[in-house]
């Protein structure tokens, strides 16, 4: 079916899968902020160890997890490249024409790479261990305090749920339309950039039309079943904050404090 990509839910049973989504979202947020406060190599090595331990507890096979990281490798490489090349801090290690590599640049590049990889890793862990519906429920709950400021928390969460739900549907639809157009002689693989993007028109137009039709149908189906927004709606799955969730939050904070002090 659809290929696994960044942020796809990986359904196994583990300690991380069992945590309350709200606790996980908060942990990831705190962790992300914390990563920007750490600036020593020792601190980052500690964080790398912690994230490694988390990956192990998540019971996601390492190969699958590394595949989640693959799309960001290019971005990391690019940032490190520029960091190393244009930073003029510390002792000069290498001078070749206009290229100068400094110790400070290498260090900064290394820290930056780790920072990005760790950020993506924890975010990836969150989405890989949390079902999309649980994730949006968690977000809705965390944002619900903003409802007083007229922030449409429920609508926001519902939009996210629907968007996630329709990814596989649209993917399947795209395959069907591609097959139908191939039968009429369309070719999506040959030719240069311009020819290829022109070849996408017979795919994108029906796909968009179909998406609007589906949106209409879904809206009607929801209304005919009495949906009228978030007020007064109860949930099938109630979120419960357990002791272990509080513990997870506490651990994250302690570990971060250690990392910042290291």
């Amino acid at each position, binding site marked *: *079916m659809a290929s696994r990509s960044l942020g796809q839910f990986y359904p196994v049973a583990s300690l991380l899968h069992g945590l309350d989504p709200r606790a996980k979202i908060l942990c990831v947020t705190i962790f992300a902020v914390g990563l920007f406060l750490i600036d020593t190599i020792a601190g980052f090595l500690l964080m790398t160890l912690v994230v490694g331990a988390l990956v192990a507890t998540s019971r996601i096979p390492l190969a699958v997890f590394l595949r989640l990281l693959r799309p960001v490798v290019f971005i990391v490489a690019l940032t490190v490249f520029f960091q190393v090349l244009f930073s003029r801090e510390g002792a000069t290690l290498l001078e070749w024409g206009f290229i100068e590599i400094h110790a400070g640049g290498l260090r900064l590049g290394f820290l930056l790479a780790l920072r990005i990889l760790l950020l993506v890793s924890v975010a990836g862990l969150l989405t890989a261990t949390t079902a999309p519906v649980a994730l949006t429920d968690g977000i809705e709950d965390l944002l619900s305090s903003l409802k007083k400021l007229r922030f449409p928390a429920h609508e926001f969460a519902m939009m996210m749920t629907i968007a996630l739900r329709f990814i596989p549907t649209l993917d399947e*639809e795209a395959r*069907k*339309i591609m*097959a*139908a*157009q*191939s*039968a*009429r*002689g*369309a*070719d999506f693989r040959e030719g240069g950039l311009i020819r290829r993007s022109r070849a996408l*028109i*017979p*795919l994108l*137009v*029906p796909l968009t*039309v*179909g998406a609007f039709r589906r949106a209409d149908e879904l809206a009607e189906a929801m209304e005919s079943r009495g949906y009228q927004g978030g007020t007064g709606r109860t949930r099938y799955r109630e979120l419960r904050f357990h002791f272990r969730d509080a513990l997870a939050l506490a651990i994250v904070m302690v570990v971060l404090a250690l990392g910042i002090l290291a």
Partner: protein
Amino acid sequence: MTLELRDVCHVYAAGTPLAVEALRGVSLAVEAGEVLGIVGGTGSGKSTLVQHMNWILRPTSGEVLVDGVDAATLNKSELRRRIGLVFQFPESALFAPTVEEDVGFGPQRMKLGEDAVRERVRGSLAMLGVEHLAQRSPFALSGGEKRRVAIAGVLAMEPEVLILDEPTAGLDPATRQDLLSLVRTLSESGVSIVLVSHDLEEVAEVADRICAMEQGCIQALGTPQEVFYKNPANAPATVRVATVLQNSSIGRPVRYADTLAALRTLMEN
């Protein structure tokens, strides 16, 4: 043109836990100029089967032969021009601003001249009785009109074999009848037709041979008489009535008109 499938198997998502065996060794030939009906329940492999006929799907094992040549070695766009495939709900792939341009997409891809394209578009729209819609937007048409236009889009490539996957699903009886008479007209002009359908009555009306699918295998293959009278419980109403009247001289009709004629002679005697 003859089209032959030899021991074709197809597995979706092979090598993953989600693997589904959709075809389990299907051997079938489509003879030149015949109307072959393919029937079977949902999930029996009908659509998977026909998508092998013009190489939209590749067999996991087995081979597809076009006039005796392995389809894997043939030019795919040429193959798809000669073997036209109309998918289920083909109207969902309409995309151009006007009906004329949409139907012209296939012939244009064949690198025909402008006049030849226009000629083909006019011809195939006329065959489907919608030439008056040429300048309209395909999105503004009714369901039946959209279906006709989508079928015209494949017909405009003048295929030697035309595969129709559930062409009448969700259509009104008039459009349904029009499509069935189109099938007859085309087959009389020498085009082979493969008609996939849930509707046994309509298959009985037009098919020369019937292939009944079950769980990815061919369960029965032969003339409508052979296939339907073998399993009358799963056959058009005509066959069921005739089976009840078996001891009379009604014979083995599969078409409604034949039954009426047989009953009439029965009553006259």
